[in-house]
């Protein structure tokens, strides 16, 4: 049975994840789920909320104190000014935010400019909306830089919006501020909306700078920006995120939120509030840990002579395994079966990415080293068999 909701890339990732669960000694370097647990003060806030606010009303857009905290956060971190009353909607994590952004702006037959490679759920959401994906390639030889002129050239009369994900998932490339300004200018000139995914905005390396399109003059009026607590506060299981944007568009986001899942649970909202307003040292500790771990993965790949896009941000890197002559899905499955290490195939993220693997650095250093040793073993075997 074929439906609009079938999704090859996503289903491939989930089938690998399911297989990995069958190995007791599996090391998961695929899924974007930090190994850190949620900081205790956030759990305490949830416990308190269950006791004190368990029966409170929450509107679809979320409780006001949380929307105020989100408004303060996006002002401080991203330079985006929003009215918490009308320009913030709380969501069930970044995933729902992403889904709502797409279905609130893209209708049947509308085109969305999507840099490739990209997080596969964008394609799934777009398929649900019966929209048209116009892939705009980013190239490894250019460090997966999103070239503004390529975006401009891809615009047609059906184009309604452009997607900007920075740091990008899976390439880990960060859009330089000047390019962001240029992309906003293009959006203004061509009258496009901007869907901005800032979920990795706190995870930047080697001096990379993040600029939110909504912070650029003229950008906010046409930009919806998503973010979530999952990555920054190790809260993947809680499902708490948000969208901010201009009030007129956000009114429609609110309608869609009410239609898709209704309100977000009060407990997750109070936990999110504690995360945003409480101590931030855990975020910095995690960021420093990821910076160290990133080096471990890079060194392991360097020792094998494997090329990769320089990870300027995020929690993963995108490694070029073209030299193996294998398709990435086939290779990922082989590494999983032989070495019990889960890495994600590039083919799940975009057509033409069959020669890449996404490797996350979301495991403790010793486990990460062990995982990369196993990947190395698998690669060496493959190369040896090719040589023979």
């Amino acid at each position: 049975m074929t439906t609009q909701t079938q999704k090859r890339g996503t289903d491939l990732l989930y089938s690998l994840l399911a297989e990995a669960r069958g190995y007791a000694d599996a090391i998961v370097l695929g899924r974007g789920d930090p190994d850190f647990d949620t900081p205790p003060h956030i759990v305490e806030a949830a416990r308190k909320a269950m006791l004190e606010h368990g029966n409170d009303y929450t509107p679809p857009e979320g409780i006001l104190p949380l929307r105020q905290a989100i408004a303060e956060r996006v002002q401080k971190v991203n330079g985006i000014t929003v009215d918490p009353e009308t320009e913030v909607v709380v969501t069930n994590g970044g995933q729902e935010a992403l889904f709502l952004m797409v279905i609130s702006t893209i209708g049947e037959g509308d085109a969305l400019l999507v840099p490739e490679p990209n997080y596969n759920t964008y394609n799934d959401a777009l398929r649900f909306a019966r929209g048209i994906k116009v892939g705009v390639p980013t190239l490894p030889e250019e460090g997966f830089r999103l070239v503004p002129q390529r975006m401009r050239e891809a615009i047609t009369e059906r184009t309604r919006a452009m997607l900007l994900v920075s740091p990008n998932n899976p390439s880990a490339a960060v859009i330089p501020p000047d390019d962001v300004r240029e992309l906003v200018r293009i959006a203004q000139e061509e009258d496009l909306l901007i869907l901005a995914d800032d979920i990795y905005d706190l995870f930047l390396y080697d001096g990379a700078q993040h600029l939110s399109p909504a912070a650029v003059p003229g950008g906010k009026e046409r930009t919806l920006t998503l973010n979530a607590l999952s990555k920054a506060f190790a809260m993947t299981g809680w499902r708490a995120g948000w969208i901010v944007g201009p009030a007129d568009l956000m009114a429609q986001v609110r309608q869609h939120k009410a239609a898709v899942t209704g309100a977000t649970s009060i407990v997750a909202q109070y936990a999110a509030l504690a995360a945003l307003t409480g101590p931030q040292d855990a975020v910095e500790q995690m960021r420093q840990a990821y910076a160290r771990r990133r080096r471990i993965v890079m060194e392991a790949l360097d020792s094998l002579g494997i090329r990769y896009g320089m990870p300027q941000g995020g929690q993963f890197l995108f490694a070029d395994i073209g030299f193996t002559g294998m398709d990435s899905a086939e290779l990922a499955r082989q590494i999983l079966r032989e070495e019990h290490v889960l890495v994600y195939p590039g083919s799940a993220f975009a057509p033409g990415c069959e020669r890449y693997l996404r490797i996350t650095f979301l495991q403790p250093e010793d486990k990460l080293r062990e995982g990369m040793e196993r990947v190395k073993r698998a690669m060496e075997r493959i190369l040896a068999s090719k040589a023979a």
Partner: protein
Amino acid sequence: MAHSQTKELVIQRHQANALLQAPVLSPMKRSPEDLSVDHPTRPLEAEVVEAVASALHGGQTHYVDVPGMPRLRELLAGWLQAMGVGPYAADHVLVTAGVQEARFLSIQVLGDLLGGVALPDVVHPGALKAAGVRRLRVHRLPTEGAQGFLPTLSGIREALAGGVRLFYLESPVRLTGAAFDMASVKEIAHALQEHDAAVIWDQGLAPWVEGCPFLAAEPDLAERTVVLGEAWPGAGLESMLLGYLAAKQEWLEMMRSQKQVISICTSTPYQLAGMELAGRYPQIHAEQVRALARLRQWAVEQARGLSLEVLPGAAVNLLALRLRDSERANARLREKGLEVAWGEEFGAPGVLRLAMTSESALAKAFAALREATPA
């Protein structure tokens, strides 16, 4: 700011979508004074809270399986079986972020598969909104006020004859608590089989109806039925929004796949709370049903004493009344600081729904209605 035609186009398109713009229900404050709630309000037991907090402190804060934690799915399946809902096992159950996600997944996924959906004229507005997101062909089913706004069987038969293959039916009706009787359930089952049609059966209020008949319990009907509702309602999970869907595996897989795109998984703390609560629920529920039944009987007598029209309803947690002057009643209720649910939001103007929260709050409401009743 520069004018954006693109933005205007997007906004106008949504504003013209009457289904999507169906009302968002008025806020529920979930206190004993709030008569607009659906399920009874009760704090979550402290032991449940502590157990959840302990699990979270222990590191259960990560993504879990898309369809739900395995143990929770087992418990939900057991609960559904104990209610007599139908032959659903754990792998037929999908845990959802509240009942609205269950509505959205079932209406959109099956509506896309089966060429649209029939929705009752009087229905929870969330069902309309769910159908409006990606516009489906929507057929409206006539309902009968004298039957508590249950869709008429003749309307269902006519829709089937007209080619409708998917129905969304509430039993009990969310506005009135009216439920199909066994004879009607059998007749619907027969008609669906005859026309090879399917149904989404919103049974969220069923725990409040003694001996509520379930369509999926009819022979072979589970194959063509998706059941949905709130998990263990009335025991303190309401604001945590824990819902469920159950269906045959082929459909469940399609809805699971769509849920993955929407929210990856349902929030871990609520799933942990559901697991902790499941064992305590039968006792909590039995006590609630007894108390609610007594309160409802008292409320019915009060309403009749005021010559108000009481609409049929079998759910002990609600009482629906038809008013001659709802505007006046609304003004009087508001003066007394009382919130009620209004039928207009469900498609039934002139009807109000009272939750059986407390005798004192209900007494205030009836005093307001007395003042609002023309001499």
